[in-house]
């Protein structure tokens, strides 16, 4: 019987019925302390430290602090120190604040080459779906499951249903992977993928860079999907080759088998013409409340829409391009990789950030920051008036000091426009890195296709 990519990976990891083996467990400081504490109380150990990798990302200040002791916020400092102590006690490798490989957990996994095709990957973080871009089955879990994986290297899991989103056509000029996934979520809704592992396929997906593929898979959870995945191909193999944890040579015969067979069945199928996708801007408080940059804020169709417009202080009928901004944030596990920064830098090069707003760039990892500095991107951003920060999750969720003030309106390359996500009372519009960069210069949203 023909199998899907998901079927193949699932079967290769079934230890027993509804018990799957986990090849890689990523850990960060926020969702792990209670799991380590529970292990300690039960006298249990970490079964496979060599398949576990930890970093500090959610809480770290982006001011260049080099050690946990420099973190001013007491609770944040304790949480990072707790991670460091737990990792030392249980033998888990950790890249904490100040380390050369520190960064957002979903940036450093691929960067180090520990994320590889065909693997099962979990992390106590919903954006773990990012790693599916490499043809891995990757999804977020809660703290009880983190404890379970630490102790057993397995997860109790019923096999989810499957969905394929098949794209045709090609992305237009100026339209990015971020627009593609925002447009997709707008189409299927925030619960459209619930209970499903989603495979993204078709020529427009194959044409994406690894950064673009990671952006698409990253936001799977915003459409409710359990995991998102893309079959690995030469683009994938070239990206993985030579990274420090990558196999040498790459097991290409094995990896090329990681494709959906002709005729494989999915529980749900969606077809989307990528040529129809325009640059996207969210107008509300869920990622599915999204429209074309050329559109106007829509009429509310439900009580939820009314509440969202009220929170966002927007009136139906206002052209998106007339919406003025106070802040711009380029960063997060969705869009903080070197490719994202290059795209944004190209837009701002030789220009200035509008005097009416403040803008910041937060590279996804120390290595992304180092590469950007090598290419002079930090200078491009700084000369334009951007604040160039050090690596972390930063204002995607504002657990560190980077937050919006109440009422501030922000164009953000992150993944969630929930109420208060970037700071209590803050108003978030999700966009691509290019759209965010152009908005920073113009002070309002612009259609990147008309940018000169």
């Amino acid at each position, binding site marked *: 019987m023909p199998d899907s990519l998901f079927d193949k990976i699932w079967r290769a990891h079934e230890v027993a019925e509804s018990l799957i083996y986990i090849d890689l467990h990523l850990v960060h400081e926020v969702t792990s302390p*209670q799991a380590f504490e529970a292990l300690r109380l039960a006298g249990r150990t970490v079964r496979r430290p060599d398949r576990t990798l930890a970093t500090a990302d959610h809480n770290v200040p982006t001011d260049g602090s080099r050690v946990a002791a420099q973190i001013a916020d007491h609770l944040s400092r304790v949480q990072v120190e707790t991670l460091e102590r737990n990792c030392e006690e249980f033998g888990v490798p950790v890249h904490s604040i100040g380390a050369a490989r520190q960064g957002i957990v979903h940036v450093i996994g691929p960067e180090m080459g520990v994320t590889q095709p065909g693997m099962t990957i979990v992390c106590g973080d919903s954006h773990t779906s990012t790693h599916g871009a490499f043809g891995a089955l990757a999804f977020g879990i809660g703290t009880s499951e983190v404890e379970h994986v630490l102790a057993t290297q397995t997860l109790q899991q019923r096999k989810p249903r499957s969905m394929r989103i098949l794209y045709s056509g090609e992305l237009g000029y100026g339209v990015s992977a971020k627009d593609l996934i925002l447009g997709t979520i707008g189409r299927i809704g925030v619960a459209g993928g619930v209970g499903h592992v989603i495979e993204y396929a078709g020529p427009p997906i194959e044409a994406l860079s690894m950064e673009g593929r990671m952006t698409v898979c990253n936001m799977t959870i915003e459409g409710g999907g359990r995991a998102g995945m893309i079959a690995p191909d030469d683009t994938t193999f070239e990206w993985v080759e030579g990274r420090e944890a990558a196999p040498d040579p790459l097991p290409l015969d094995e990896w090329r088998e990681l494709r959906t067979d002709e005729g494989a069945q999915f529980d749900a199928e969606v077809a989307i013409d990528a040529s129809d996708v325009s640059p996207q801007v969210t107008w509300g408080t869920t990622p599915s409340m999204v429209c074309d940059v050329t559109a106007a804020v829509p009429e509310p169709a439900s009580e939820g829409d009314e509440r969202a417009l009220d929170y966002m202080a927007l009136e139906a009928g206002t052209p998106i391009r007339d919406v003025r901004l106070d802040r711009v944030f380029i960063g997060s596990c969705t869009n903080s990789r070197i490719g994202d920064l290059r795209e944004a830098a190209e837009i701002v090069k030789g220009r200035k950030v509008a005097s009416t707003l403040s803008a910041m760039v937060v590279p996804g990892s120390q290595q992304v920051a180092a590469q950007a500095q090598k290419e002079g991107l930090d200078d491009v951003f700084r000369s334009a008036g951007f604040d160039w920060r050090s690596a972390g999750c930063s204002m995607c969720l504002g657990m560190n000091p980077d937050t919006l003030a109440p009422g501030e309106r922000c164009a953000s390359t992150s993944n969630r426009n929930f109420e208060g996500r970037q700071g209590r009372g803050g108003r978030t519009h999700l966009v691509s890195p290019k759209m965010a960069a152009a908005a920073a210069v113009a002070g309002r949203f612009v259609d990147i296709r008309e940018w000169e």
Partner: protein
Amino acid sequence: MNAVTKIKGPISVLRRSDVDTDQIIPKQFLKRVERSGFGEFLFYDWAKEPGWDLDPNPILVTGRNFGCGSSREHAPWALEDFGFKALVAPSFADIFYSNCTKVGLLPVPLPEEEIEALMDADEAEIDLEEQTVRFAGREVAFDIDAETRRRLLGGLDDIGVTLQSADAIDAYERDRERKGPVTTL
């Protein structure tokens, strides 16, 4: 985890859909390294809105796609610590649903029209053994995975259950484990 069998009592109603876990427990409370004490911060920002009224009854009835967004288990911890023992909604987000079952907070999916009727009732009785919700003279069945139900009814420790398959895990690692990655570089 305490065993879950019957949950009976007055209901609280939250008429909102797509409630994300950022609302249930905002980020500033995720910095704690303890597992208890989250209840007082439940719906921290919404609770300041005029007209907000949510009592710590045993049962919370709410809108579709409850618990979407972040995987933070602090959300079920906060709901449970606040006093809820069961959540009834037309649908739940995947990770949130799973997290609830791990902490003994029973998620109950019911059709939209039953939710409407239940929101108008004062109290209800949920029977996990029978897989039913009884309210206002009606009895409605709900779905739950048989294994999840068994664990909840028995208050079983998931890790303990999995370790009964320790031989299978050893065998997998011996015969089928794929190479790498090695994180201990």
